[in-house]
């Protein structure tokens, strides 16, 4: 599984009274954190990549392919949401297996793939559990296991750990970092915690007021003084 470069080329869209402009290029296998104030358009950014929102103009490229008009199902993209990632009336195994093929039964080969994926997220033997019996962190692990078996080029995470406590969140971030290093997926995650970004991302994209203001190497990004609005967002402006 190898990541593909992800490019949003002059993407513009208007939602209500908000005009948004996304212009960003991520390398194959990048691990990018999207940060910015509430309402800056972080979730919209992911929705455009996944195909849940259609841009009014501009193009979205994944690898060498223009996916701008493609259906969500036809894009090499997996997405993990903050909640409701699992169908609550289906077992963990079937929820993961849906990532391989949209059927309600899994063959022996699939079952092994599912078991492997669950093992990689630290949930060995959870196949027959129901989502309702899992903790919030465990449910998110199942969703990540499904993203692993989908073997897509791009993984999008929309604040998937925002509802978890600090310790759990750190564990999950380390897990994600490890899996990303193993699979080399291109990963984009939205976060409200700049320290998360510093911890696992190699690239940071800063959004403000519906625009991609800047993107670049994570190292030292948060200390940059040339990015308009960044210091303000981080709460470092002088009074």
């Amino acid at each position, binding site marked *: 599984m190898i990541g593909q470069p992800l490019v949003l080329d002059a993407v513009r869209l208007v939602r209500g009274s908000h005009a948004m402009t996304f212009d960003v290029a991520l390398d194959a296998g990048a691990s990018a954190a999207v940060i910015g104030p509430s309402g800056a358009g972080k979730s919209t950014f992911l929705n455009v990549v*996944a*195909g*849940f929102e259609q841009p009014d103009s501009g193009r979205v490229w994944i690898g060498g392919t223009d996916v701008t008009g493609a*259906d*969500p*199902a*036809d*894009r090499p*993209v*997996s*997405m993990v*949401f903050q*909640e*409701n*990632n699992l*169908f609550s*009336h*289906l077992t963990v195994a079937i929820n993961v297996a*849906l*990532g391989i093929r*949209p*059927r*309600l039964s899994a063959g022996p080969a699939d079952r092994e793939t599912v078991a492997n994926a669950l093992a990689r997220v630290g949930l060995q033997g959870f196949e027959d559990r129901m989502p309702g019996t899992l903790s919030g962190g465990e449910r998110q692990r199942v969703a990540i296991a499904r993203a692993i078996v989908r073997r897509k080029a791009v993984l999008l995470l929309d604040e998937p750990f925002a509802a978890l406590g600090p310790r759990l969140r750190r564990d999950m971030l380390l897990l994600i970092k490890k899996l990303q290093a193993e699979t080399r997926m291109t990963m984009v995650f939205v976060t409200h915690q700049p320290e998360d970004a510093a911890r696992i991302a190699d690239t940071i994209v800063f959004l403000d007021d519906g625009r991609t203001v800047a993107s670049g190497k994570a190292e030292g990004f948060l200390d940059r003084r040339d990015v308009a609005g960044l210091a303000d967002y981080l709460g470092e402006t002088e009074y």
Partner: protein
Amino acid sequence: MTKPFHGQLLGRRQVRAGIISGAAVMAGMAVSIGAAVYALLAAAAEFSSGTDPVFTAYIWSVTRFTLLQACLSTIISIGLAIPLARAIARRQAFAGRKWLLRLLAVPIGLPPIVAALGLIEIWGRQGIVNHALIALGMDSPVSIYGLAGILIAHVFFNMPLAARLLVSQLERVPAEHWRNASQLGLGQWAVFRLIEWPFMRSHLPAVSGLVFMLCITSFTLVLLLGGGPAATTIEVAIYQALRFDFDPQRAVILALIQLLLTAFLLLILTMIGGSPDEQATLGQAAKRYPGRGVAARFFDYGLIGLCALFLLAPLVSIAISGLSADFVRLLNEPVVWRAIFTSLAIAAIAALISVSIAATLVRARYAAMPLAYDYPWARAFRLSASGASSLVLLVPPIVLGAGWFVLLRNRADIFAVAPFIVITINAMMALPFTVRVLEPAHTTHMARTARLSSALGIGGLDRLRLIDWPGMRRSFLLAMAFAMALSLGDLGAIALFGSQELITLPYLLLQRMGSYRTNDAAGLALILGIVCLVLMIFADQGRKSGEAGAQL
């Protein structure tokens, strides 16, 4: 959501007044309903000592038919409502979607007698459907009278109700599920099995139970569309036994059977979770990514179109034939004006009584709330105060009326007390609805104001004038509108107790239909339909904005 506050917010005197008045109202209701049931039981005991067989073949066949038509009506209504709800929920953005959802609410607000007239105009001997069938080469017209007509009418009333409830259920599916489904490339069938069906299934028993209950207790539609003894339900048979055959024995037995049926159903309904609630369906729903296939689109829009046509055709027909009625002559008839005034007077008084009873019960429940944590009797009291309003469902208007008819038949001039009985029955009939409007409004109102007013020491009449009335006025008026519309459209009580001295609009309409003065009937139906719809729309709009306000 406001967190319930469990402290003592009412003064000692207010609590006592609330509980005592609640108990008095409940006692009054128990006596009036109990008297009817007692009269039925006593009469039955008296008859069973006679020699005639109690359970005649006729009674069995009527009971069987009642159950049969209710089963079929429920199956067809739900069977159509599921794909319709699915199509409406899948297609989030088509022109007229809002109007379609409103159209689904219309039959519930329409007096059954008006709807029946519209259905006869479309499906009857002279209707469009038969013309079309004959043009297509059928030999003889299809009759709407009998089982077919009853089913069409019940589907007309209940399919949209069920569809609305199911749509609101589907709109509760988290948006992430739809996104997941589209990202995973799930097909239509998988989406149905994985998402839509599980979400609807949890609501189906309650929705089906409600529809079944409505079909078991439906009187007007069966009276107008049933055909002879072969297609008669228990309620209609009670009416015929009392008004035409003067056979109180048969009426009593039938009424007791009906009582058993509704009691059994109510028990089951309570066990499966009571009546389904409807969330506002017009709000912003999750974005859907439905199949773009031509077949799926054709199916969805085809179904939506057919259902809209099925619901609209009778309404349009009522409007057209109503407008061609001779209103000048109609409005020059004193009896028409008398019917209008009688209807309005009965509806207004019944609504006022219903809202007062509801308010007293709601207040009593609230007053007893803090005590319920310490005293079992207070818990029991609160439970029976909420049960009192559903007790009305247990004893349908016709059964209640039959009970009083039997009770009073040798003791008083039934037709002299008829107006009071009709008013009482109409008031009770509306009670479940008025309580449902008032209770949440009262809870929110108290949560907002109770602590503040007791802190400021505002009580008694001042509180009523300054705080409670301004805060609750809206809900009172809504409940009034609801109750008035129900009473205006009611044919059950008035069919039993109506006479040349006591004529309401539906009763007059029934007479004109019976004497084949269809032109008059159409005009009266239009008047009645418009008045009821206006009241219902008013109540419905207010209920929705009231709910939105309650979330602040």
